[in-house]
């Protein structure tokens, strides 16, 4: 009896010792229930290989995620590892919540060269790294091959230009009312839907030093008016009907638009639709300015004020596991089809997208975009606020109720005030 009691006591002491030796870190991310399941599987895999570290997940729906993250940090409950949408990266950076990991990357010899370089840039500020790319996502031009075939138009090559694009879009446009087919369809909800076109005209959202609004220049307003004219002649479908990207996709699947912008996740969605044949292209620029395809990468970062050294080390281990090249996270995310590869690896693309279905050129075109045609957004603190000013004005321009110069001039003081403040 005494022996048994002694053994039980020893066991208890052992368990409590093991528990006290275990470091707990908190990991915040967004996602729907499926995505949360993927993250939990990855956490399980990490805990299995790192029995001394326990990861507590904090899962929030995307719409509320960044506000919740702010509240957690403000309330002293900051997660140790957190995902940040690149739109908010500068906002969080400004608060001092993100840790500079440049030295750790160097010390642990994380091979940054393996990443798609356009994606990597979104986690850099003043030459220092504040996270690793969570998902590098170029915005491809999705080409509906059936619409092209029906119109007798050949699929263009990656080096196509804006003029080729407009010419092709016009060739694809036909019909009236319910039978209307437009060459191109885009939403009017986000800056990334039109900025490539402005880039092609040699203009940008901001001035080079990002201190002033850039869409008031004659070059930029001319391009915006040109887009409005293409909408008016129905070469571009009326963006007002695309209340979200799902509607855009629906029109694409039904062959009512020949081309649209989309991210890698749209590839998976389209592969689920039977009989949709499509291919991918970079966004068309000009011979002088070919790099107008938006490449955006969300970030996974560490909290800057982790006090406990053991906890900080555990958080870094987890970050590496998730997103460093060659670490298990990359493969686990691919298998779960949660995100496209961050690194240039054809095998990973084959796992992410079904290689037996269209498009057949996803890896190749991604490589081209990252090498030649890609460009990152000029992200700034206050990006979503600026977007909230620009897009409603642009909707008026697209609707033909005001010209671009007037519309952009109206919001210039407010945008400049945000830029000056942030």
């Amino acid at each position: 009896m005494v022996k048994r009691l002694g053994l039980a006591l020893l066991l208890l002491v052992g368990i409590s010792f093991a528990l006290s030796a275990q470091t707990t870190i908190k990991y915040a991310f967004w996602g729907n229930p499926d995505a949360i399941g993927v993250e939990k599987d990855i956490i399980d895999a990490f805990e299995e290989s790192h029995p001394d570290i326990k990861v507590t997940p904090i899962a929030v729906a995307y719409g509320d995620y960044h506000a919740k993250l702010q509240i957690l940090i403000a309330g002293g409950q900051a997660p140790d590892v957190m995902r940040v949408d690149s739109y908010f990266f500068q906002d969080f950076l400004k608060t001092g919540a993100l840790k500079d990991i440049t030295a750790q990357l160097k010390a642990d010899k994380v091979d940054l060269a393996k990443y798609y370089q356009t994606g990597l840039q979104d986690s850099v500020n003043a030459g220092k790294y504040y996270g690793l790319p969570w998902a590098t996502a170029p915005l491809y031009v999705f080409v509906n091959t059936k619409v092209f075939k029906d119109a007798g138009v050949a699929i263009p090559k990656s080096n196509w230009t804006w003029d080729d694009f407009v010419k092709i879009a016009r060739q694809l446009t036909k019909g009236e009312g319910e039978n209307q087919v437009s060459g191109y369809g885009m939403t009017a909800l986000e800056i990334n839907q039109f900025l490539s076109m402005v880039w092609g005209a040699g203009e940008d959202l901001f001035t080079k030093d990002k201190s002033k609004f850039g869409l008031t220049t004659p070059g930029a307003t001319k391009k915006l008016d040109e887009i409005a004219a293409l909408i008016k002649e129905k070469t571009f479908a009326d963006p007002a009907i695309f209340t979200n990207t799902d509607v855009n996709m629906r029109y694409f699947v039904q062959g009512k638009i020949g081309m649209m912008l989309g991210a890698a996740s749209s590839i998976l969605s389209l592969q689920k639709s039977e009989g949709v044949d499509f291919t991918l292209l970079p966004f068309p620029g000009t011979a002088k300015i070919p790099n107008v395809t938006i490449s955006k990468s969300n970030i996974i970062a560490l909290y800057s004020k982790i006090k406990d050294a053991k906890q900080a080390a555990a958080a870094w281990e987890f970050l590496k596991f998730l997103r460093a090249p060659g670490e298990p996270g990359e493969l686990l995310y691919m298998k779960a089809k949660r995100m496209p590869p961050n690194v240039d690896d054809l095998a990973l693309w084959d796992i992410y997208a079904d290689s037996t279905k269209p498009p057949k050129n996803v890896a190749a075109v991604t490589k081209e975009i990252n090498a030649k045609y890609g460009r990152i957004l000029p992200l700034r603190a206050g990006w979503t606020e600026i977007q909230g000013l620009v897009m409603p004005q642009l909707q008026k321009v697209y609707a033909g109720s005001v010209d671009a110069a007037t519309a952009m001039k109206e919001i210039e003081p407010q945008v400049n005030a945000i830029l000056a403040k942030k």
Partner: protein
Amino acid sequence: MTLSASQKEAIAGYAFILPIMSGFLLFLAFPVVASFFVSLADWNLINDPEFAGIGNYIQLFQDPFFWTCLKNTAYFSLFAVLFGMFLSLYLANLIHETKPKGASFFKSSLFLPVILSSVAVALVWQWLLDGQMGMINHLLNMVGLPSVPWLTSPAVALNSVILVAVWRQIGYNMVIFLAALANVPDELYEASSLDGASRFQTFWNVTWPLISPATFFIAVTSIINSFQVFDITTILTNGGPANSTNTLIMMIYQNGFQFFKMGYASGIAYVLFGIILIITAIQTIVSKRWVHS
């Protein structure tokens, strides 16, 4: 120390109200007061608040977007409340007067939208009002009428939102009107009939004054609710196109939780509070002239 019976009673009373008062003070009174102080600061939730005085309020009144949202909210409130009240009174009166077979069915059917989730309601209406594939446009086309850009035209979208809001609130108002109508004494109708009053005269001189307390209640609550419209506009149009359906509550949400400008968002909330307070005060004062007591 012995307590008197009245003291014991008082302590028991305080003990009874303690749970609700704690909740009220902690989750309502404190945030209301705190948000006023927040409205006097620039605060992004993480860094320490910086005192801004009345800067947020000055900025607000100079912000064209605020005036757009205020105009949209006022337009929405005016027409949603007016149509909502008129239609619900008409339907309540119709059911009350004609007492049709299956009256319970009509009442339940009209009340159904009230108990449905507003998100589900908005999503269904979004499909119905879809410009290209929506059933409403399909029906219009079947009778030879052109499609209407219900949710995609800045000139039409807010009216579509009003349509959905009215459809949703009509049942609730109607139930209150029905209860009020049931309380109007039959003798008054008999007397009115003996005096040879027409249906309109009977309604105007008998029914309307006697249901005025219910009308006043519905008017006040509907206006307060309409100034706080958020869910339907967010799901149906997300404030677009071209800000034509953006409202003050959406502006608060955007500034607070998308742009992380808590001070500015609190400032808008206080201005909205002031607007609702003034309207309710005016309604209460004016009601003394027309509400039957």
